[in-house]
């Protein structure tokens, strides 16, 4: 029913899709596998008409689909269930389904829609009560409302984007059952996931993407997790960085049994323990959303742990405020430049001093000292080769690479004992990426300890002296780079955790 041929899409110099073919037949479930940045989302955006492809053709139900927008894609019979739901909490299931269901013209007919919801609910085992408020539903139920929405809009091909990422195991079982019913009813399904178990269990065929290309297309029957992991990450990883080998120093950061529950009592971090030595990079791999942001925020003091402890060079910092951790020698490069690590509307000089603005030499008795800001900025801009029209232009006017240089200059420039770097090369071009990595390595040479988190396995393998994997809020036992088995890491990233420490 769906045939995508030779889809190409470039974002600037990034080739997100290079000649991808994807075919889905009615009553088939196709698994779409790939790491972050492998081109899955771009492909789906092209299919849905959110972005236009540079080359390639799409045929859906024997009709060409070109130059369309999402509305046309829905009208043609495509339905997308995003990771983030779009439900109105204060409305009932019926009312939520009716939003965007404009086939009845001007008049609303809630009773008819409610009846349809009941019928469809029985048919697919969705188990939804049309009268309940969306706000009172569990995550899994909310997802089923989204599925209901696209079915009633007449979707014949459903695209589920990482649908199991926030579900509990029983909810996952339920979802897989629903997908089987969809298949029985002759609808096509594209199942986007990182989780190899689920893909192997439910899919008829599996398409693996890597770096914008199809690297594998095979029937699910007979495929093994090892095969798939190899196809996902298999690449020449021998080109490791010319990195000096030196024995790491004494441990500076101890994390013991660190746990965190969020406000909804969902466990974000489970009993994480590791230690980090001076002059060492501990690289943590993992698919986004497995607790990495919670871990870095708890370490940096932006969120509070609900259990366990953090010890920085003999000092218990578990409940220390952000500013004091900074003074204790903990630096942090957050992932989000646009809103967190930089204030784009403030000047380069302000941003370079952003985390120390109220300490000497930048301030005295509550008064700012502009001269100190200027001297500091001039020195850092020269040392880190930050290209800007001056120290007083807004940071926003700099290129992404130069913005990140500001962050690097600020966090590394103060020679921290421990640096937490969360995807510091995100969105940077190759030149800027190299700069960031060189700076990290220089800090390592100088005896700094670095905790490096990335969704890119390449970088993790390239930089890490020891490597661990984060999955579902847990951290695997770190292993030295030389002993790391890439297939095993791929498996762990997808949810098989052979080396998980016993609690």
């Amino acid at each position, binding site marked *: 029913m769906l045939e995508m041929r030779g889809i190409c899409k470039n974002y600037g*110099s990034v080739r997100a899709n290079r000649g991808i073919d994807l075919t889905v037949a009615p009553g088939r479930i196709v698994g779409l596998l790939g790491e972050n940045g492998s081109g899955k989302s771009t492909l789906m955006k092209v299919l849905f008409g959110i972005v236009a492809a540079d080359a390639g053709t799409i045929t859906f139900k024997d009709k060409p689909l070109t130059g369309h927008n999402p509305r046309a894609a829905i009208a043609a019979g495509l339905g997308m269930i995003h990771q983030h739901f779009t439900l109105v909490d204060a409305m009932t299931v019926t009312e939520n389904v009716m939003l965007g269901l404009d086939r009845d013209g001007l008049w609303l007919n809630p009773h008819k829609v409610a009846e349809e919801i009941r019928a469809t609910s029985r048919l697919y085992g969705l188990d939804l009560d049309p009268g309940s408020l969306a706000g009172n539903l569990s995550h899994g139920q909310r997802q089923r409302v989204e599925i209901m929405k696209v079915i009633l809009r007449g979707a014949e091909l459903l695209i589920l984007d990482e649908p199991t990422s926030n579900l509990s195991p029983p909810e996952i079982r339920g979802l897989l059952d629903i997908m089987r019913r969809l298949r029985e009813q002759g609808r096509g399904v594209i199942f986007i996931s990182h989780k190899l178990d689920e893909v192997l269990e439910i899919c008829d065929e599996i398409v693996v993407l890597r770096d914008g290309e199809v690297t594998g297309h095979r029937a699910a029957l007979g495929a093994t997790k090892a095969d798939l992991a190899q196809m996902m990450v298999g690449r020449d990883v021998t080109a490791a*960085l010319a990195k000096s080998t030196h024995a790491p120093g004494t441990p500076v950061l101890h994390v013991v049994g660190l746990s965190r529950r969020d406000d909804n009592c969902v466990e974000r971090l489970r009993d994480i323990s590791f230690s980090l030595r001076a002059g060492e990079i501990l690289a943590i791999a993992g698919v986004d959303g497995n607790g990495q942001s919670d871990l870095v925020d708890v370490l*940096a*003091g*932006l969120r509070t742990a609900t259990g366990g402890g953090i010890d920085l060079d003999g000092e218990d910092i578990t409940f220390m*405020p*952000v*500013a004091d951790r*900074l003074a204790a020698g903990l630096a*942090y490069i*957050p992932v*989000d430049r646009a*809103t*967190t*690590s*930089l*204030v*784009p*509307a*403030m*000047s380069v000089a*302000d941003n370079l001093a*952003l*985390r120390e*603005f*109220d300490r000497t030499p930048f*301030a005295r008795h*509550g*008064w*700012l000292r*502009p001269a100190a800001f200027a001297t500091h900025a001039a020195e850092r801009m020269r040392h880190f080769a930050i*290209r*800007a*029209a*001056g120290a*007083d*232009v*807004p940071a*926003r*006017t*700099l*290129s992404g*690479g*130069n913005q990140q240089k500001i962050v690097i200059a600020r966090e590394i420039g103060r020679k921290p004992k421990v640096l937490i770097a969360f995807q510091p090369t995100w969105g940077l*071009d*190759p*030149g*800027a*990426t*190299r700069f960031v*990595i060189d700076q990290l390595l220089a800090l390592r040479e100088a005896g700094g300890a670095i905790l490096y988190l990335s969704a890119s396995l*390449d*970088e993790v393998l390239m930089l890490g002296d020891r490597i661990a994997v984060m999955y579902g809020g847990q951290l695997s036992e770190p292993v030295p780079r030389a002993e790391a088995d890439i297939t095993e890491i791929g498996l762990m990233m997808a949810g098989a955790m052979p080396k998980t420490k016993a609690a």
Partner: protein
Amino acid sequence: MLSRGDSETRTATTAATLDQMAQTLARLDGLRTFLLACAAVGLALAVTGVLILIAGKNPVIAYWAMIKGAVGTADRLAFALNKSTPYILAGVGVALCFRAKVINIGAEGQIAVGGIAAAFVALYVKLPSMPLIALALIAGAIAGAAWSALAAFIRLKRGVHEVLCTLLLNFVGVLMVSEALNGDMGEPGAGFPQSPLFERAAWLPKLLHGTELHIGILFVIAAAIAGHVLLWRTTFGFRLRVLGASPQAANYVGISAPRCILGVMVVAGALAGLAGGIEVLGVHYRLIENFSTGFGFNAVAVALIASVNPIAVLPAGLFFGFLEAGALAMQREVGVPSSLVFVIQGLTMVFVLCAIGVGARRQKV
């Protein structure tokens, strides 16, 4: 991933182009804002001129009458300056709040309770003139700050949005004036809700002999400068700017948002309360009902027209004061309704906000 080459050259070229753009922008930033504000005023006057034409009057004559009415004589000038005083004082506080993205629209209520406190001191405390005035103004500022802090507490402890709690406390504050005047502070047998006239000792000294110009304008200049210094030269101002630009960044830096919000609300409330005290001691010499009507709205308008720069609140507030002072003259001499002045105020605000909206992404904090 690590190959150097053409991509780096391209990055360098792009960076150079960005550099040039940034340089040009930085130079134009201040001038640009000023010109935009002037253009907005001009546009508002032009549109209102058309309205005057439609009403069958000559806009040039009407505007001339208005200018003469505002600055024609020393008395008129004094009247206009006195009128600007509360707008600017409260406007500086509002501008500081808006910088931190705290939408404080409670100036009206803060002015009202400031007026009550100042009047209370003026009526019941026996002191020589200077200490009495100082005590009355301090009492006004403290009352305004307390009123504002109350809104901040409701915001921080109960999570009620500050727009709602400051707005609602306005009604309470204004009605408290009526309550006071209908009770012990009212003048017996006056027939109008007002307090007895204060002793002369409590009247604000005049700045210019023979005119009504009181020393309030000195507070205004000091407040605008102090607001500017606070925002750009102190760590507190730095915190406000970071918090307003990005709450996530403020969290990352370790800035306490609740302390900033409470702090800036107290500062704004004190300025508004001071404005209330000055109005009562300098213009009416008594507390009267509804003396603060419209002040809160004008303070917000003035802060916005100044694109939330405390120092720019000064010209913006003067503009509003002069417009209103000239309005009556225009009505008297040309027969154009003075309410057209509100049209000019409203249009100016709309045009300035449109211009700011266009340039918002270029603003530097």
